[in-house]
């Protein structure tokens, strides 16, 4: 019964949230910039002409000119540390603080929508953006790869060769892996967004969290906490590029991200449901 009550009108508000998010020019500008990453990468490789020795530049860079399907992977690795967290910071940091800043938050709450429901819907919105961002990057990567480079069966890290459809499946899995990582960061951003009415502050703080976490992961003295860091497994999807496929790192990363979603989701809930809306 309680569940029915919570779900009443839920889909309507999710649709409304997505339509508001994806009708903002800012959202499209960020997705367009994300799409530029594989495009510039592919053009740079194409123009340089010379073959890149293995081991130089980002992983897989040397393979891009041999097989266009690697454009997406390489672009993803480039975008994970900074660019994707930046866009997630903007979207997740804006969730509550942005509505509070324009004053629309008070009109949503007296509509009325319960605060718990609004948080869930905001998280769904941020997650939808994470999906859109990784999908944009990978799909653009595939398209420019097809245009600029030969495309064929893919040689995996393990040396095995897989067919193009099997490679596309792995591309989708990597995109899913990164999406889950970004959802963990979204939960952090959602929490920070409940703390302020200045959206830019929440956006910046979210990006800072992701950056600090990545810095901590480079300090060997802190090895003991590394596995618990939000970003520690973000680049660990190499397992998905072996044959047979190994889901071990995917499982670990998913558990860590779920833990972050649970912790920061609860923190956001306890903060937001007791907060006076004075803006």
């Amino acid at each position, binding site marked *: 019964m309680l569940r029915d009550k919570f779900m*009443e*009108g*839920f889909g*309507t*508000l999710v*649709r*409304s949230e997505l339509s*508001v998010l994806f*009708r*903002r*020019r800012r959202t499209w500008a960020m997705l367009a910039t994300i799409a530029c990453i594989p495009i510039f990468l592919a053009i740079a490789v194409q123009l340089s002409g010379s073959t890149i020795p293995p081991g130089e530049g980002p992983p897989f860079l040397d393979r891009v000119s041999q097989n266009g399907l690697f454009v997406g992977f390489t672009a993803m690795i480039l975008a994970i540390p900074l660019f994707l967290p930046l866009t997630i910071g903007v979207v997740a940091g804006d969730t509550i603080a942005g509505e509070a800043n*324009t*004053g*629309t938050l*008070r*009109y*949503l*709450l*007296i*509509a*009325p*929508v*319960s605060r718990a*429901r*609004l948080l869930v819907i905001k998280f769904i919105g941020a997650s939808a953006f994470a999906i859109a961002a990784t999908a944009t990057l990978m799909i653009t990567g595939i398209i420019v790869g097809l245009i600029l480079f030969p495309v064929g069966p893919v040689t995996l890290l393990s040396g095995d060769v897989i067919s193009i459809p099997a490679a596309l499946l792995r591309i989708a899995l990597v995109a899913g892996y990164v999406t889950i990582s970004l959802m963990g960061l979204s939960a952090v951003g959602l929490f920070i967004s409940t703390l302020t009415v200045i959206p830019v502050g929440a956006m910046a703080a979210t990006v800072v969290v992701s950056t600090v976490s990545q810095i901590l992961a480079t300090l060997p003295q802190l090895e003991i906490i590394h596995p618990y860091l939000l970003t520690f497994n973000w680049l660990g999807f190499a397992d998905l590029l072996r044959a047979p496929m190994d889901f071990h790192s995917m499982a670990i990363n998913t558990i860590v991200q779920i833990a972050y979603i649970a912790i920061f989701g609860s923190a956001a809930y306890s903060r937001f449901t*007791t907060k*006076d*809306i*004075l803006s």
Partner: protein
Amino acid sequence: MQQSNYAIETQGLTKSFGSHNAVDQIALQVPRGSIFGFLGPNGSGKTTTIRMLLGLAEATAGTISVLGHAIPEDAGVALPHVGALVEGPAFYPYLSGRDNLARFDSADSKADPKTRKARIESALARVGLTAAAEKKVHAYSLGMKQRLGIANALLQPREILILDEPTNGLDPQGTREVRTLIRDLASQGITIFISSHLLLEIEQICSHLAVMSAGKIVAQGSIAELSFSEIHNLTLKTPDADKAISTLNSLDIEARNEVGLIKANVIHNFIAPETIADALVKAGVKIQGFTLEAPKLEERFVSLTGEGFDVAR
């Protein structure tokens, strides 16, 4: 649900920010079907009170009942029957007026999506925004935003409308339209709770009033209750000041001479105006002008809340 005579009722309602009581032990009683004016200078706690009534801010102490439902516990039950404009309208600037209304309507889980379009159109028509409905809100004037805010409050048939400074930014024409709209809504039995610091606006349409000053309610009741049981002002214009004052004194009226005008406070119904005029004429006082009237709401307001631009504290 217990049926109360009051659409909104608070007891001991208090909101503290640190050691400062922005709202201090107020007992509001808004009768059903009334047009209730909520007056007070800037900073007297009106908007903080409204935020608590709508469950946006939590009371430090005291209870709130809206349509018989406790706030904030049962806000989800009460609020669909309440339309509100709180501290100015707020919209998504990159959406059109129509899309903004759709956004807020879809946040209300009780709102029927099937009737949404029709309800939005009729709310837009009601505030005269149909022609501008497709424009993005960032291109709206302040007055248009204010109208759109009122349209948002009218998306559903409501039992209470809470309007915080509804005519802010409207031109005189718009202000008159809003007043007409409010009277029209009130005639349908909707309780209207309207806060303002503009007295003229309130005086013309309200049936009941509460006056806030420095977080407390300093007067509350129907317009009739507030204007009577009242000291009325006597003003006399005459060249015979001394004679006039002694005549009034003989009638137990304490009069004073203020820059050529004789003024006095007379308890209502203590003495009929014609009796005073008669006595003055008999005493040979030349009368150039004579009035005895209840103080205007504005004077009453100033006497309750203090004069000048000072914020209440």
